[in-house]
């Protein structure tokens, strides 16, 4: 595709880079819509947490990361995995529980892992990934590497002790962690103001002497800019940074959620700020793409998702004889003994 290069409103992005942001957000949106459909059809089971409405956060933040950086995410991580470049087909196969899934069907929707992408889950214990992130960064520091660790978590994690322990440790040891707090206002069904005496999340981070900024998480360019700046400060070796990314989940918490805790009007109000629609409008206004160009991009994404579903459908079920595989490392004596017992 060719066309005019974007204005300074698009930071310093080339046209292709700007359109790639759009394309990634579309991929996440359509992937998640397909997941909801497949869940209703019984193809995907267990818990399924959709990222619809929050796409700008993962897509914007991911632009600041390099291949050597490690990423830790939560159980609502399909978007991050896609934005990081994990193929849609292996994520979809994982949802199906197929052996061809990125975690060989052992993890499911909540536990997407990918060594190549340095994507370390997929953690379904709220706050559980934060101490791990501290450790990743500590290892990088001890081994004199230059990578940083990006740790995504929701505002609900702020109530966990692990949040406080981890921010303190990262700040105390000046570790290269980029803490990315996705504030979608509800910890499952509990609103932030019903769980925190002080709802200013940045203040909590600052109390550990961690530089913190609040960002419009519905604006992919704002997220991208703030993440790039924060990542640069982390890489400069001054210690961790904290970003609060204000966003909203348009769908229920999981597929079992009756959404009794928020009004339809509130949801509708936020949907008017849809990050994908907003960016689409910006792309159009800028003349980066016309209607038919956008439609071609949508069609390409649809083909990719459709191929991912076919791949998952064609995948295989791991033989039950392999049930206890990957509890211990195969070649270790512990693994041998465990199998014998």
């Amino acid at each position, binding site marked *: 595709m060719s066309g005019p290069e974007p204005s300074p409103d698009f930071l310093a992005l080339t046209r292709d880079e700007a359109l790639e942001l759009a394309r990634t957000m579309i991929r996440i949106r359509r992937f998640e819509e397909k997941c909801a459909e497949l869940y209703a059809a019984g193809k995907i089971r267990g818990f399924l947490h959709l990222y619809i409405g929050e796409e700008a956060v993962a897509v914007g933040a991911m632009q600041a990361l390099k291949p050597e950086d490690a990423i830790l995410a939560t159980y609502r991580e399909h978007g991050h995995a896609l934005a990081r470049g994990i193929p849609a087909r292996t994520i979809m196969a994982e949802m199906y529980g197929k052996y061809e899934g990125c975690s060989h069907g052992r993890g499911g929707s909540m536990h997407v892992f990918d060594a190549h992408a340095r994507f370390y889950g997929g953690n379904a214990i709220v706050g559980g990934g934060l*101490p791990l992130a501290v450790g990743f960064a*500590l290892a990088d520091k001890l081994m004199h590497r230059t990578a940083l660790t990006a740790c995504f978590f929701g505002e609900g994690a702020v109530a966990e002790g692990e949040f406080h322990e981890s921010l303190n440790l990262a700040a105390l040891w000046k570790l290269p962690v980029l803490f990315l707090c996705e504030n979608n206002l509800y910890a499952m069904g509990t609103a932030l103001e019903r769980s925190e005496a002080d709802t200013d999340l940045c203040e909590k981070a600052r109390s550990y002497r961690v530089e913190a900024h609040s960002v419009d998480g519905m604006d992919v360019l704002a997220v991208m800019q703030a993440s790039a700046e924060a990542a640069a400060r982390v890489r400069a070796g001054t210690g961790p940074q904290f970003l609060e990314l204000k966003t909203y989940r348009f769908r229920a918490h999981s597929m079992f959620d009756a959404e009794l805790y928020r009004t339809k009007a509130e949801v509708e109000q936020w949907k008017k700020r849809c990050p994908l629609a907003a960016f689409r409008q910006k792309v159009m206004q800028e003349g980066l793409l016309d209607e038919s160009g956008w439609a071609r991009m949508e069609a390409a994404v649809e083909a990719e998702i459709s191929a991912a579903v076919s791949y998952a459908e064609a995948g295989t079920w791991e033989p039950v004889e392999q049930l206890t595989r990957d*509890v211990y490392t195969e070649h270790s004596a512990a693994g041998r*003994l465990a199998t014998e017992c």
Partner: protein
Amino acid sequence: MDDTVTRVRTTYRDAMREALREALRRDERVFLMGEDVGRYGGSYAVSKGLLEEFGEERIRDTPLSESGFVGAGIGAALNGTLPIVEVMTCNFSLLALDQIVNNAATIRHMSGGQFSVPIVIRMATGAGRQLAAQHSHSFEGWYAHIPGIRIVAPATLEDARGMLWTALMDPDPVIMFENALLYNLEGELAPDAGAVDIDHASVRRAGDDLTLVTYGGSLGKTLQAADELARNGVNAEVIDLRTLRPLDTVAIFGSLARTHRMVIVDEGWKSGALAAEIMARAMEESFYELDAPIARVCGAEVPIPYARHLEEAAIPQVATIVDAALRTLNKHV
């Protein structure tokens, strides 16, 4: 060669320190982290002097954030280092249970085998020092319930000196339970003592009349009980489990197949203890070998009391082990 001439007098504490020192010297990826491991020298003085030798980066004092620093150890293990994380006592490890159970034990499996967690978590365990109900637990049986981690319990100087390096080389998480009463254990060690296997139980005393199975802090008492039994004409075999998960059932049931009688000594509370698991497996696998019901000498069903006489009554003692053994042999005194 006369071994006794060259053997070195040492303690369990010093042997453990030598193991740490060797690991830190041998591999730059190794570091030690925990509460008071550095300036203080370790709450049981195990790491005394290591800060001066290896510096603050590798002998890393942590705040009182068990979940935070144990989790950090797990993350660091995932990212190419070999962390040794010391948790002051297993009682405090409950604050890190989420990280150990939900992350260390699961990540290999949840990721479909993509990642290993080569961490070693050391913790003191056991009663006997009048430290009451929040500093005297024996949680190794709990931890041994969890697939994905290996549990070891060094009970001798050789194992204190040699288990650590082998545990570090294991790609999977290992938790090392050090009974706090053992730190002052004195004895002799070969000058070239080093890494030992952590796959097998060990026969600490050979015998034919019955099998006494134990581990960790109860090994000494069990060996004393075996001596006393010998004075009563009973020749007991003593098996030190050494590794509590996975269990070396080959050794346990091999011995049982020769002696046909077994007593299990385990400081953990009786209900659901490791001893219960060994008994259950014996029923499943060696039922027809048994000439008598298997007996257990376990912790009493009570939080460990402070008063000395009550604390002693709450955990296995030489007399209760002897008594259980004699009852198993129908030689009740």
